[in-house]
């Protein structure tokens, strides 16, 4: 019962959805201000979501209906799970199990996989092209991201979210060491690719692929996909905060400090998104398997040497 509450209401679905909408509004508003526009009103993400829920569902002819409609739900369930696990690890660091970090890393991949499956099931050429790009992007960013996470594991000598939290409480945040700084840079770049935001929004590519992987979705399934994206924008930086910046604390002024950590990370994401053009998929792969991978390996070596 308690776990159900945690999954559906407090750190889980409802909380993440509401904060995700707020965060996506901040993203759009900051983007608008950077471009010297006024930007959308506060409740815009909610209006978008409600409107999409009221629209007609169109399943394209020849598409695999069940897969096409269920894939977005799997993505939503996965991102909810990641969010609840991270927040539970901050609320009750002593619970959880050994290896929950690995579970989080795996489950974090599922929204992308769900998008790929849904796009392939839609029997649309443009969607398939977008899905194949998304797959390549996943292959590209997963390896450096795992190296970055490995730095955290080597430093704290644990694959347990709670123990990582305790380690950073006693020895300071991972970001304060040299290997931690390098790992954090790698992780932020990978996060941009995982969120498919602008330098790496290759699978969606509004101008050439007309929404790419989402091209055939309409109505409620599209609403679920958009909501998943909004929740990812809240959850993934939260994972980074937990792994590299010491996690969220709830005593007194520490709450403000925790929120500040998240907001700084969000602003970094939004600024990267607003100051870069989209790269091609081969450039993205070369970038992640070249310079970023080298930085990641350097970070792991530094961590093994104890820096």
């Amino acid at each position, binding site marked *: 019962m308690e776990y159900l509450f945690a999954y559906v209401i407090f750190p889980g679905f409802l909380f993440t959805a509401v904060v995700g909408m707020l965060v996506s509004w901040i993203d759009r508003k900051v983007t608008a201000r950077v471009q010297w526009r006024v930007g*959308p009103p506060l409740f*815009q993400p909610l209006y978008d979501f*409600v*409107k999409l829920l*009221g629209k*007609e569902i169109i399943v394209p002819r020849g598409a695999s209906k069940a897969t096409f409609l269920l894939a977005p739900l799997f993505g939503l369930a996965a991102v909810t799970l990641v969010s609840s696990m991270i927040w539970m690890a901050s609320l009750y660091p002593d619970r959880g199990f050994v290896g929950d970090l690995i579970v989080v890393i795996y489950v974090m991949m599922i929204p992308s996989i769900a998008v790929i499956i849904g796009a392939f099931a839609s029997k649309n050429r443009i969607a398939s092209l977008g899905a194949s790009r998304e797959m390549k992007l996943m292959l590209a960013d997963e390896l450096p991201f795992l190296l970055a996470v490995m730095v955290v594991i080597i430093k704290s000598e644990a694959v347990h979210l709670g123990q990582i939290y305790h380690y950073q409480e006693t020895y300071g945040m991972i970001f304060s060491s040299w290997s931690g700084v390098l790992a954090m840079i790698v992780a932020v770049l990978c996060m941009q690719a995982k969120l498919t935001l602008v330098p790496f929004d290759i699978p969606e590519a509004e101008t050439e692929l007309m929404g790419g992987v*989402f*091209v055939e979705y309409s109505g409620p399934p*599209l609403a679920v996909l958009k909501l998943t994206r909004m929740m990812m924008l809240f959850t993934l930086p939260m994972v980074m905060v937990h792994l590299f910046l010491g996690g969220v604390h709830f005593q007194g002024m520490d709450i403000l400090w925790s929120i500040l950590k998240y907001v700084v990370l969000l602003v970094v994401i939004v600024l990267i998104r607003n100051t870069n053009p989209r790269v091609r998929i081969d450039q993205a792969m070369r970038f992640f398997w070249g310079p970023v991978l080298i930085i990641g390996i350097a970070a792991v070596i530094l961590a093994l040497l104890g820096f």
Partner: protein
Amino acid sequence: MGIKLKALTKSPWVYHLSTGSCNNCDIEILDCLTPRYDLERLGIVLVGSPRHADALLVTGNMTMKCMKRAKEVYDQMPKPGVVIAVGTCALGHGVFEGSYVMPKTVDEVLPVDIYIPGCPPKPEGIIAGVAKLLEMLKQKA
């Protein structure tokens, strides 16, 4: 129906369909998204796929080749949705009156909800038209 239309007036996503325009109206439409006019403050976003759209924005004369395609794109748009005709050509035939490649006007092919005249209409005119359309939908809801 009420809440559906109400939410639609708060975030109309627009798919831009040119059925044979000279690109002048299209440039004026893009002007609406620039910092000076900024349609995103009304929740209006240009989308790439008709499946995401709530409003079909038609510019230009309806040519014979486009008639079938325009109907198809309209059918691809999930309902409820609206059709906006922009520019003198889309309202009637404009300077192409009597041309043999344009047997029908836009509103004979698609159910147009609002007409925005002008050759091309100013961005202020387009925004005024869209605002009137949203007002109409609000009263219907």
